[in-house]
């Protein structure tokens, strides 16, 4: 069944869209990530204009993260105090991200920056996660127990000023690294159309030493708020949010995420992390190849509209 997408101005198969949302939603439920880093490239590959894909996936990530965030909220596993710092900084960062998105699109370098961005980001995060999780798997095989929590050593930024007490996370740290983290995630996330959960979670764990039970919930709340702001920013600046496209992806994604979450119970944490790392690395390699391999077509075309280059 075909459905006409009014902003993308083309007609696509409804079941294909819902199915794609469902498949990515399954993975996002399984790994606890938003799935934007998979969905955006898939849509572009299916013929949706890049600007519409990035802006609409932003809306889908909000939906995908909302149900997770609510269930963590009910369990009291969200540090709202810490999240409020992250959110305000990331919304600020998203302003710059959406502005850079427009500027790059006009100059024709958006695809390049998206490819390099995904390659660097996913490549480094994927390799780090893979080595860490493989190490944990090997340690478990060898019979030595993995440390229950991380050693409470101090980083250099523990000496920074503006220290604040985050009661729920049992942290007394400077807000500067928190704000810098939010700003960076906001910029990168809005530019690449990803929630950034896969960067934020390791950063909260390894850099800020947020306790494990608070990490996912806090990260999800931050992703919901930041992507909600980014959706509005994209709607205003590029007018390329396709509500129908986003809704099809949301419906599939929300259902898929539930099945993914229940499937995740049968896998151990380090196994999940190893699988996610492989997935992230595969996407990174795919982007790396598009940069290096001779493209099928060295020519491309874009429409210049009143609001900028589409």
């Amino acid at each position: 069944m075909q459905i006409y997408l009014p902003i993308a101005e083309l007609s696509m198969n409804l079941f294909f869209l819902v199915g794609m949302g469902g498949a990515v939603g399954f993975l996002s439920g399984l790994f606890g990530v938003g799935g934007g880093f998979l969905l955006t490239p898939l849509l572009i590959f299916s013929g949706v204009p890049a600007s519409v894909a990035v802006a609409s996936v932003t809306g889908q990530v909000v939906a995908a993260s909302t149900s997770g965030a609510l269930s963590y909220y009910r369990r009291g596993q969200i540090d709202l105090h810490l999240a409020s710092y992250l959110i305000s900084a990331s919304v600020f960062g998203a302003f710059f991200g959406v502005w850079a998105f427009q500027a790059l699109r006009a100059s024709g370098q958006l695809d390049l920056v998206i490819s390099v961005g995904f390659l660097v980001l996913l490549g480094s995060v994927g390799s780090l996660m893979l080595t860490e999780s493989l190490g944990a798997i090997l340690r478990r095989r060898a019979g030595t127990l993995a440390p229950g929590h991380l050693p409470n050593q101090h980083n250099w930024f523990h000496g920074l000023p503006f220290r604040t007490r985050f009661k729920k996370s049992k942290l007394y740290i400077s807000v500067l690294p928190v704000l810098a983290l939010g700003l960076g995630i906001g910029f990168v996330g809005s530019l690449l159309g990803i929630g950034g959960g896969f960067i934020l979670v390791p950063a909260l764990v390894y850099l800020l030493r947020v306790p494990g039970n608070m990490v996912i919930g806090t990260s999800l709340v931050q992703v919901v708020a930041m992507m909600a702001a980014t959706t509005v920013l994209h709607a205003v600046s590029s007018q390329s949010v396709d509500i129908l496209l986003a809704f099809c992806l949301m419906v599939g994604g929300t259902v898929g995420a539930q099945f993914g979450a229940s499937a995740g119970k049968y896998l151990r944490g380090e196994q999940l992390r190893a699988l996610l790392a492989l997935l992230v690395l595969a996407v990174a390699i795919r982007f790396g190849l598009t940069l290096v391999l001779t493209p099928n077509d060295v020519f491309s075309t874009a429409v210049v509209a009143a609001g900028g280059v589409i």
Partner: protein
Amino acid sequence: MKPLLWLLMALVFTGAGKAETLVTQLNRSDVEIAADFRGQMLTLFGTIEPGPGETLVPTGPYHVVVTVTGPLQTRLARRKTNQFGIWINTDEARFESLPSFYQVLSDGKLEDIVSPAVAAEKGFALSAQLHQRAGGRSDVDYSGNLIRLMSDKGLYRADPAGVQFRSDLLFFAGLDLPSDAPPGSYIVKTYLLKDRALIAEHADGFSVRKIGFERFLGQAARQQPWLYGLAAVLLALGTGWLGGVVFRR
């Protein structure tokens, strides 16, 4: 007496050039885009009739060329080159007043039925649509590649079998609009040719527009972007919340 004679002669000679009248009709003047829009097939019917004051039945053989031109736009044609091992968009050419959609349909190969002068004057060729080029390198064929890209998208097409004659004087042409045909005003021009010369032409038009919910969404996105964005966010929050409620165990 003399002026009257001149007038008479003038009437005779101009009348001689108007032995045929071209009558055409599109099967619809509006193409409406709703949720189930999958493209649209339009049909142009045409007959060749005696000119005003003529009693003789026109005799051919005639040939017909139909052009369909969509709303004009500005496009960039970009080229990637390999810089230090990475493929980057390095140069681009800008084409102004370029049709977003262009089809040229005829009942034979253009070079067989139209004289080169007429074809050039009326701009039948796909390449004739890309006349306003600015920027880019002089040694790169941006026009040819843009035509290829537009043809791949189904937006540009030259079909030498697109016009079919049902009899010597009755013809029809099928205009195939893909689902991503840009909304706007389309102009359909029909040219009647005899002995490779243009003897009559006629213009029709139709509009492609979104209706109902599709129209509402498209307008809201443009005119109320803040509200539209907020609505998208509320929809996302609602869907996520509902999903959580439905599947809560």
